[in-house]
């Protein structure tokens, strides 16, 4: 398995996770009859997004290093 292509794949999948996560939060806010506060969901999303970005960046750095 090429390390460069692994990093490319990791970044693509991470970006996909971020997009699907944002869609999911919007979907929850628009379809649930009693959705939680929008600010709470978006803050939770940002927390998850930070972990995903850190994980992808750290792993890419280690794999390419």
């Amino acid at each position: 398995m090429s390390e460069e292509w692994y990093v490319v794949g990791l970044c693509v999948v991470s970006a996909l996770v971020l997009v699907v996560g944002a869609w999911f939060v919007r979907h929850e806010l628009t379809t649930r009859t009693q959705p939680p506060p929008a600010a709470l969901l978006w803050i939770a999303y940002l927390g998850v997004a930070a972990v995903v970005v850190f994980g992808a960046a750290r792993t890419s750095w280690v794999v390419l290093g």
Partner: protein
Amino acid sequence: MTATLEEHAAPSPTVVTRVLGWIGLAGRVYLGYTFITAGLDKLPHHDTTELAVRAYQLLPWQWASAYATALPVAELLLGILLLLGIFTRSVAVLLALGLCSFLVGITSAWARGLNIDCGCFGGGGQVADPHYLEHVLRDVGYLAIAVYLVVVRRTALACGDWLFGRRA
């Protein structure tokens, strides 16, 4: 009066919703049991878990000990919450995130040509014949269950429904 009562009555779940809920219960029990087992296998063996974490060479050296301490506790707590059906969707999101991190760890070790045991249920460190594909497929299966629990919204026999007064 009748109209008012009907307006306030919660819609009764359909057969499909009930079946999906029971499938969700099966997923909850399986995934909950798996994570409780993983947590219990690692909890008494901190040094081995730390060795397994370090073998991935992903986290900064100083973080490995804290991660090795926190991981089994988190697995145990999340597994118990999932088994009981409390905060099921939030727990499933956290487990999905954790499983993604495990998948990244395993696949990155594979990509770098490391020969290590995943240490998922205890153990870890160098091995002669790592089973990366097997571990990846297993974790993808667990991830599919976690995603299902997020998507299905309600599962059968969830303690959260009783605790928070939701209609099952």
